[in-house]
């Protein structure tokens, strides 16, 4: 079912050669956005924007973005070497390709970076694409049959506090195994999401689509907010405070569903899409910034919380503070 949907999506992308219908990067203002109350949604100010609304954050079958549908936050450049926004040129000296990210001395994932800058040297687009290691022996629960691969639910990138309003989006590469981006936020703290155990297309009771900026937000350095590791999804409803995420202007968080192998929900997307953040920069080359990349397993099913921090390219002089 899922692969059929993907094939249809690929055909749709190939059949449209123009970028004219691209939805484009979405603005993530430092002041946040207003959101109204709804199902699984309290009213308030939020750091978050919904991107691909299909697939229930990867718990169900997602429909890939095309130039005509499911394309909020999506851009459609010809390839990763092409700027997703016109007027920007690639800084080829800053290309990084398949740099290993490790934990406990084992390769967990590989990151590819492409950076673009405008002709005035005032704005850059930082692109990062991460593929999971598919040969890993990582198994977060030995007592379950088979191998439980690391399931990445969020990638967060840091170093943007110098920009008031950044914009962000993603390029779903056709023909490979990319996850969509389900939501993106101007936030440091990722928020756990679980599906209704009886209907994978629905969010479980108490979980929130666009986490709001209060009234009670976790401490600034909190990597993941939620109910924690649970034996079965939906068994524990989160409190309102367990679904908030503060606006943190230095960070942009992309919610995805990426796994090196078959994960507990049956999904197999082993690659993140190319994820972009457009922010202010200078003529100085981007610099490697330790711990400005956060790879998080937030427990969509029974997974324990895992956070892998890595170096990433950022504006020269940027920091990875919360």
């Amino acid at each position, binding site marked *: 079912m899922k692969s059929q949907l993907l094939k249809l999506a690929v055909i749709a992308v190939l059949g449209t050669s123009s970028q004219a219908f691209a939805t484009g990067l979405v603005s993530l203002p430092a002041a946040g956005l207003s959101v109204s109350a709804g199902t699984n949604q309290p009213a308030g100010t939020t750091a978050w924007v919904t991107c691909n609304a299909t697939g229930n954050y990867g718990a169900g079958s997602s429909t890939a973005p095309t130039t005509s549908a499911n394309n909020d936050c999506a851009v459609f450049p010809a390839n990763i070497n092409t700027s997703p926004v016109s007027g920007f040129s690639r800084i080829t000296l800053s290309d990084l390709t398949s740099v290993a990210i490790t934990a*406990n001395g084992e390769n967990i994932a590989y990151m590819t970076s492409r950076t673009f800058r405008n002709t005035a040297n005032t704005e850059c687009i930082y692109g990062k694409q991460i593929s999971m290691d598919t040969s890993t022996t990582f198994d977060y629960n030995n007592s379950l049959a088979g191998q439980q691969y690391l399931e990445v639910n969020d990638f967060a990138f840091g170093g943007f506090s110098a920009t008031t309003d950044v914009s962000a989006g993603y390029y779903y590469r056709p023909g490979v195994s990319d996850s969509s981006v389900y939501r993106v936020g101007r936030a440091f703290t990722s928020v756990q999401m679980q599906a209704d155990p009886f209907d994978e297309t629905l969010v479980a009771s108490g979980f929130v689509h666009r986490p709001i900026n209060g009234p009670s937000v976790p401490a600034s350095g909190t990597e993941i907010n939620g109910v924690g590791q649970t034996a079965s999804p939906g068994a524990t409803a989160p409190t309102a405070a367990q679904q908030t995420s503060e606006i943190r202007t230095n960070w942009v968080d992309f919610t995805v569903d990426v796994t090196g192998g078959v994960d507990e929900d049956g999904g197999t997307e082993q690659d993140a899409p190319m994820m972009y953040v457009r922010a202010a920069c200078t003529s100085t080359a981007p*610099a490697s910034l330790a*711990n400005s990349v956060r790879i998080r397993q937030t427990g969509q099913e029974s997974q324990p919380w895992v956070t892998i*921090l890595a170096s990433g390219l950022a504006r020269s002089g940027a920091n990875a503070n919360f």
Partner: protein
Amino acid sequence: MKISCYLFGLVLCMHHLSASADVTNASQSGFVNLPATGNTNSAYVLCDTSTNFGLSEKNASNSNQSSVGQCAVSDDKLADSPMNAPLDGFTLVGIISRGVPIPEPYAAAGGEEFATLTDTVWHNNDTKECIFGTHILMKDQTLANGKRWEINDITRGGFSGRPVAIAYFMKPKPNKDYGMPEALFRAGRTYTSVPYDKTGLSLPALQGAPATTKAISKNQSAAVNDNWVDFTTDISFDDADGVTRKMTSMLYIKTTCDQRQPEEKDGAIRLRTTGGNGQEWLEIDVPGLVPFGATIEKY
């Protein structure tokens, strides 16, 4: 004389371990207790001393597990993946892997990642115990003085008032990208790291020890500090002594934890260069996981 006293202490320690092994699994022992008061004559116990504290190549670097000395855990599950628990009954609670930047002026520019430190926690719900795993992989970076960063000691805090047992797992085969891990030479219930003594005294004494808050000892002694555990090893991306091990073994601390989720505290882990090859002393503070409610002192 000193060594025999130490051995006597170890026998007591091993006896205690076997008594508690009914709960865990005797076949997977390797964990050695570090009493809160130290052993008879030292805050430390010796583990693998076959490489002369990393200064000489191991006789059989990819030898089987039976030759790696005490404190070593041997388990097929660990050979499969270091994310697996070193004892039965424990399940993974969480992992946090982070880059370790070196501040200026030791690094030419701040922000670059010199090593990757992985903190792993497993929990046993029946015994209310946690195992804290520590692993470091060095990266290809050079210090401002042109030398490579070398880590001789890793010190972790947060264990005051709790029983502590330590062990390590050394992968029997080299990693295709990062080579062989280094063994654990010794471990102590102390805040004080002790530079390797080329005269051969490898077990730091309690007698004549500096204050319990001293990071690196100037003589071959260290006082007990029950909030801290020190692991002595020897890693560098390119070691000046010619024997390069880019990563540590999996280093384990087993203790009690009433709550499954640990806490993260600034400065809970200290990475120290004690100058085995003439380097200047250096200590880098890193955040680390501690048992819930534990405290970390800043001396």
